[in-house]
């Protein structure tokens, strides 16, 4: 580790720390006794009350007499104190939430433990079995601290911005300066500074205000409540936005495949994850097409169904008075109603809803000859698949896309479905997120980077960072070491 000595002068010391943490809105420098004494700290990480009571108050009572560090140690009622002359150590402890005390003229400083663990709540929207059990709270300082705790990196920048004429919402823009693309940071900052709105209450509103294409159903910035997800993505070169009063962080730029990833994917072994992720991606495509395929096959192309299967299909549809299109639309709407009703209810009542919807309506609909059993199964399967989406917003998109697909299928059969797919392909190709193509690495084709979204490989293959944002620090760890092969018995 590098070893840089701290300078004696207070101004020089402050300058050095500020240089090492260039853009940190939460770094505070407080001077006392006519700039004889300086107190430095990262205010998101520490217990402010403790700082005032146990550090600032005794120091102020001193009245400006010349002191040595040893004398100061006598009067500060805190257990852990450390004398240091090392800049790197100072920075490390600053980012852990310690206070750094510097006396002008002494080439040493005092580190005082005042950190507090940031508060987290249990994740509700993006649950993980093995992963971290912490989600963002609704306090901005606390959320920044949650990330700083996972990533005490001097290169982690924290820019402070304000949006909304009336709401004056504070926004923290976090990125790692030598991994994130400078151009993205400028674009994002510019977009927020150019915003002329009276209020920004929620982070999802902010994404709608600053994304590239406001017509599309696809969200181009990812919302997440998990600090570990934000940390992974910061390390991939993305930029995170945290809003005061909001428990969802915004991540940009994003690709389609980011919506199919969970932070659990990193925790599980690579081969298991690969299988699960592949299943998830197939489920999401399947969910958009399943009911539409049923409608197309039964309305226009019954020939494609083998005779045995056709038999059971006809049997189950025997008493259904509607054409497949209406039958499918009816069921899809019922499922959507159930979901919407369930989403607004407290958990206990929600369970009852599930029983009423699933068993009563489902069973009764078949008994009454409203729909066929097979369609109920397909629609339920489609709904189930859409819930495998790790991202709530993306789940809604998938469920919404089913309706035009079903209509097209009922109208033109298989041709309609393919026209829909072709449109979706063109549409996804045209979407960008902060100017980055949404379908990357599929297009522009970067086979080397498929491991970032579509696949999940062994950890050694992640030695090099993806070139999504052309990072300055292009390596996670040494690729040479990752590739090293040992012979037997060595």
């Amino acid at each position, binding site marked *: 580790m590098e070893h840089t000595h701290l300078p004696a002068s207070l101004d020089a010391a402050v300058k050095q720390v500020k240089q090492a943490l260039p853009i940190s809105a939460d770094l505070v420098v407080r001077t006392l006794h006519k700039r004889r004494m300086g107190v430095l700290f990262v205010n998101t990480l520490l217990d402010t009350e403790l700082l005032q009571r146990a550090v600032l108050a005794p120091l102020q009572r001193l009245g400006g007499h010349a002191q040595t560090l040893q004398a100061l140690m006598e009067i500060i009622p805190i257990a852990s104190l450390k004398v240091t002359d090392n800049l790197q150590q100072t920075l490390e402890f600053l980012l852990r939430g310690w206070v750094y005390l510097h006396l002008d003229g002494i080439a040493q400083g005092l580190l005082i433990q005042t950190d507090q663990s940031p508060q987290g709540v249990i994740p509700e929207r993006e649950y993980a079995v093995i992963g971290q059990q912490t989600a963002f709270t609704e306090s901005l300082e606390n959320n920044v601290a949650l990330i700083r705790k996972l990533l005490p990196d001097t290169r982690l920048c924290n820019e402070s911005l304000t949006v909304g004429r009336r709401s004056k919402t504070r926004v923290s823009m976090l990125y790692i300066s030598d991994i994130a693309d400078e151009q993205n940071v400028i674009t994002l900052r510019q977009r927020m500074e150019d915003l002329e709105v009276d209020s920004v209450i929620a982070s999802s509103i902010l994404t709608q205000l600053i994304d590239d294409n406001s017509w599309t159903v696809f969200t181009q910035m990812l919302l997440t409540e998990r600090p570990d997800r934000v940390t992974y993505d910061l390390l991939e070169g993305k930029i995170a936005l945290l809003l005061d009063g909001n428990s969802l962080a915004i991540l940009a730029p994003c690709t389609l495949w980011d919506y199919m990833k969970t932070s659990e994917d990193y925790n599980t072994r690579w081969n298991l994850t690969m299988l699960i992720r592949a299943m998830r991606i197939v489920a999401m495509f399947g969910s958009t097409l399943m009911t539409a395929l049923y409608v197309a096959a039964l309305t*226009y192309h019954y020939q*494609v169904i*083998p005779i045995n299967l056709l038999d059971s299909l006809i049997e189950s549809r025997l008493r259904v008075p509607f054409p497949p299109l209406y039958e499918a639309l009816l069921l899809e709407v019922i499922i959507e109603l159930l979901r919407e009703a369930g989403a607004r209810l407290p958990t206990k009542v929600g369970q009852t809803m599930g029983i009423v919807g699933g068993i009563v309506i489902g069973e009764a609909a078949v008994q009454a000859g409203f729909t066929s059993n097979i369609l109920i199964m397909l629609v339920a399967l489609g709904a189930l698949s859409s819930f495998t989406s790790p991202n709530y917003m993306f789940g809604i998109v998938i469920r919404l896309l089913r309706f035009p697909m079903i209509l097209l299928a009922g109208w033109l059969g298989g*041709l309609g479905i393919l026209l829909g797919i072709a449109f979706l392909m063109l549409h996804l190709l045209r979407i960008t997120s902060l100017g980055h193509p949404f379908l990357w690495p599929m297009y522009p084709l970067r086979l080397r980077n498929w491991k970032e979204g579509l696949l999940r490989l062994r950890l050694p293959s992640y030695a090099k960072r993806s070139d999504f944002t052309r990072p300055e620090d292009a390596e996670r760890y040494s690729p040479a070491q990752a590739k090293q092969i040992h012979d037997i018995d060595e």
Partner: protein
Amino acid sequence: MNTTPTIPKRLLFNASMLVFVIQANQVGVGVLGFHRLIAKYVRQDAWIAIVIAGLAVHLILWVMVATLRMFDSSDLYGIHDAVWGKWLGRVLNALYTAMLAAPTLVIIETYIEVIQTWISVDIPSWFVSLSLLLLVIYGVLGGLRIIVGFCLLSVLSTIWLVLLAYYPLQYAVWSHLLPVFEAKLPDLLTAVQKMALTLSGFEIIYFVYPFVRDKHHAYRYSQIAALITNLIYLIAMLTATVYFSQEQLLHNIWAQLSILKIIQLPFLERFEYLIIPLWVLVILPNMLLYTWATTRGLKHVFHLSQKKGVYAVALITLGLGFLFNTRQKVNQLNDLFNTFYLYAVFLYPLLLYVVALIKTKWQRRQEGKQT
């Protein structure tokens, strides 16, 4: 000689994408029913005709890229201006533009015919044509990079269909290929000529070349694309020849679809009902690329903005679609453009190359004299 303004860097694409662009543009509706047209003249030797035609494609691609290389960063329109002079160049450009607008119509009409024959007569042709053209408009408005992306996705999502040859090959009668080399040379050449429209599509290199980032790799990748296409056609022809008897083959208008009929999976039968809708993804790249090239031409010759150009081309194609409403007319259209393409895509590039070569040599000598 640089005759077109330089293209901004963000619009460029990698040379490797040419594999997908050219291959996607070469394979279209033709592959569904080209077998009969070739077999009519050379019977079991049809595959030889395809090999010869394929070799011709490789040769012409070489000539095309060589021509393009003489003119730094210019497309065919710019080259025409430089080689033939202002007026003749302009006339040729107008002709070429009109010719590039035609495939969209031919493709749509042929595809509608397939749909109405195989799936349902009730699907209104104007509606299919309208929805395809709307997709074309949407794609072309996104620019060439989007179109290239669509070519990539299209190839990735349909190339696996080649593997379906496994099913008919289980019933192959390989003696159908014998005797080899029975066809006479004139017949063979006629058959090769009939492949013109089916194999065409590689001429798109004339127009996308300025947009390629690493131009020195362009030649390699376009040849790879042509090779893949040739293999696809060869596999298709061989499968059809060994699967059908000669009489059957000669009476099968859409041989490829008839072959696919025999595929049976536990949950799926009659594969052609899956393939025909899927062909939307195969024909869209052709329509997108040709329409795009047409709008470039309209811009070059008539200074019409590309945005207006797309709408104009789509509207005209939609209108002309109403005229070609019978099988005979569609057939005539196909035959007419086959001849057109034979001259414009297979023979004209040779002439252009020779003239361009002489002209550049002559110009260089003039410059040498002056200094």
